[in-house]
C-alpha cells in the first residue's frame, strides 16, 4: 500500500488517506486509510456506530471530512462543489439498506429517475435502458411490474429495483449500505448472489458495508474492518483468516462464519 493516491492507479479505484470526521465532540472517523480495488467486491465490516455509513457518505461526496483525502481515479474529491462533485457522483450508484425507492413514483419512474434528472434523453432511450435492466435483473418476469408502486413490491423485489436505479446511469462504483439487514437466510443468499452477479455482469467496483459475517466471507474479494474510527485490518479473506487481528477475530468468530487458525 503506497501512501499517495493522487495518481490514477489501474488496481486501486478509490484511495482514502488520513480521513477525519467529527460531529460536535464525537470523533467518528479518526484517520482512515483504505484502498478500494477496481472491479472487485470490497466489504467494510464493523459494529454498529463505528462510522461505516459516515465513511460511505464521504466516498460519494455527501459529507465533507474535517481533514484527509479521497482519491477517486486519482482525483481528490474533497472540497469539490456543485458541478465538479456532481460529475464525480455520476461514477457512483448507491443501493440503500431498505432500497429507498420513491413512494410516489412507479417502478419505471424510479429506475429512470437518475437519467431524467441528469440528462435530456429522448423518452424512447430512457425506456430502452430501463427495460434492459428489468430484463437483466429478472424483474420483467413479474406481470405489470413497470407500473407497480414500491408499496406493491416484496422486499426482495424492492431491493432489485433499487439496484436497477443505481445501475441505470452505468456507474463504475456501486455502494451497498448493509444490503442483507432484516432479510431471512434465503433472501440473504439471493442478495449475495445479486451482488456477485452484478459485479461480474456489469464489471463494477462494489463497496459493501455489512455486519453480516457469513455473507461477507462468502462474497468478498477484499475485507476491511472499521473499529473505533480507524481501519484495523484489511486484505483478502484468506489473508485475514490466516493472520487475524484479535479485534477482528473477536468480531467475526461468534457468527461462526469462518474458522480461524490457533491464536498467534
Amino acid at each position, binding site marked *: 500500500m503506497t501512501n499517495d493516491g493522487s495518481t490514477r492507479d489501474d488496481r486501486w479505484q478509490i484511495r482514502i488517506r488520513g480521513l477525519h470526521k467529527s460531529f460536535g465532540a464525537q470523533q467518528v472517523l479518526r484517520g482512515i486509510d483504505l484502498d478500494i480495488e477496481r472491479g472487485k467486491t470490497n466489504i467494510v465490516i464493523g459494529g454498529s456506530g463505528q462510522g461505516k455509513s459516515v465513511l460511505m457518505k464521504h466516498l460519494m461526496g*455527501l459529507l465533507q471530512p474535517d481533514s484527509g483525502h479521497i482519491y477517486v481515479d486519482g482525483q481528490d474529491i474533497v472540497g469539490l462543489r456543485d458541478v465538479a462533485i456532481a460529475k464525480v457522483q455520476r461514477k457512483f450508484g448507491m443501493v*440503500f439498506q431498505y432500497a*429507498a*425507492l420513491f413512494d410516489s413514483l412507479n417502478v419505471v419512474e424510479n429506475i429512470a429517475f*437518475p437519467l431524467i434528472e441528469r440528462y435530456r434523453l429522448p423518452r424512447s432511450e430512457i425506456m430502452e435502458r430501463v427495460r434492459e435492466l428489468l430484463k437483466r435483473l429478472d424483474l420483467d418476469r413479474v406481470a405489470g411490474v413497470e407500473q407497480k408502486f414500491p408499496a406493491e413490491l416484496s422486499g426482495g423485489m424492492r431491493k432489485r429495483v433499487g439496484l436497477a436505479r443505481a445501475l441505470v446511469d452505468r456507474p463504475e462504483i456501486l455502494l451497498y449500505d448493509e444490503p442483507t439487514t432484516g432479510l431471512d437466510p434465503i433472501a440473504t443468499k439471493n442478495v449475495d448472489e445479486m451482488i456477485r452477479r452484478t459485479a461480474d455482469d456489469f464489471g463494477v467496483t462494489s463497496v459493501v458495508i455489512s455486519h453480516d459475517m457469513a455473507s461477507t466471507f462468502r462474497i468478498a474479494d477484499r475485507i476491511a474492518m472499521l473499529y473505533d474510527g480507524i481501519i484495523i485490518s484489511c486484505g483478502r479473506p484468506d489473508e485475514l483468516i490466516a493472520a487475524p487481528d484479535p479485534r477482528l477475530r473477536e468480531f467475526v468468530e461468534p457468527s461462526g462464519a469462518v474458522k480461524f487458525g490457533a491464536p498467534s
Partner: protein
Amino acid sequence: MSEASPPSVGAQEKLPLQAQVVPLLGRIFAPLLGAVEIFGLHMLLFGRAVTWLFRRPFRLRLYLEQMEFIGVGSLPIIMLVGFFTGAVTALQAIMALAMFDQQRWVGYGVGVSLARELAPVFTALMITARAGSAMATELGSMRITEQIDALTTFAVNPVHYLVTPRLVSAVLMLPVMTMVFNVLGLLGGYIISIVVYQIDLGQVLELFQHWVDPNDYVQGLIKATIFGVAMALTACYQGFNVRGGAKEVGRATTAAVVSSSVTVLILDYFLIEIMSVIWPSHGM
C-alpha cells in the same frame, strides 16, 4: 480549599450568588433562545426554498401535483366549511340585529367578516389540518426511509425538489381557496337570510354593495398568502427534520399542525394591526 488560605466572607457570598444567577438566567432565557433559533431555522429554509425557485430544472409537474393536492383536493372541505360558516354567521347576525330591527344589515355583516377574517383564517386552518399534516408526514417518512438521502445521491437538492414546490403551491392556492370559501360563505348567508328568514334581498344587496369594500377582499387575500407561507414552511420544516422512526413522524405531524395553527392565529393579529395602519378602515 487549602487550610492556609481560607476564603473571605465576601468571596463566599459572591461565588454562590454568581453560580446561582447565571444558570437561573440561562433557564429563564432558554425557551426564548430556543424560539429564536427555531424561527431562524425556518427563515433559513424559506431562504433556501426561494433561492432554488429560480434555478433549473423547474420541474413543473411537481408544482402542478402539489397545487392539485392543496387546491383541488381541499375543495370539498373548504366548500362545506365555507357554506356553514356563512350560514352560521348570518344566523347569529340576524338574531343580534333583530333586537334593533335592522336585519337588512346581515349582508354587510356576513360579507365583511368572511372577507377579512373568517375566510382566510378558516381556510388556512382547514388546509393546515388536511395538507399541512400530509406534507409533514410525507417528508418525515421520506426522511426515515432514506428517500431524501437518495435524492442527494442523484445530485438533486431536496429543498429544490420537495420544499420549493410545496411552498409555492401553498402560496398560490391559499388565496384561491379563500375566495372559494368567500363565495360559498355568501351562498350560506344568502340561504339563511333571504330564503329562510325572508329578509328583503334588495335592501340586503344595497347595503352589501355600499359597505363591503374590494379592499376587504384584498386584505383577506394578502393574509391568505402569508398564511400559506407559514403553513407550508412549518409543515416542511417539521417533516424535513424528522430523526428516528415512525413515532417521530407522528410527533412531527402533530407539531406541524399545532404550530402552524397557532402561527396563523398569532400572525392574524399582527397582520390586522399592520393593515389597519396601511388602510384605515371605513366602517370601524
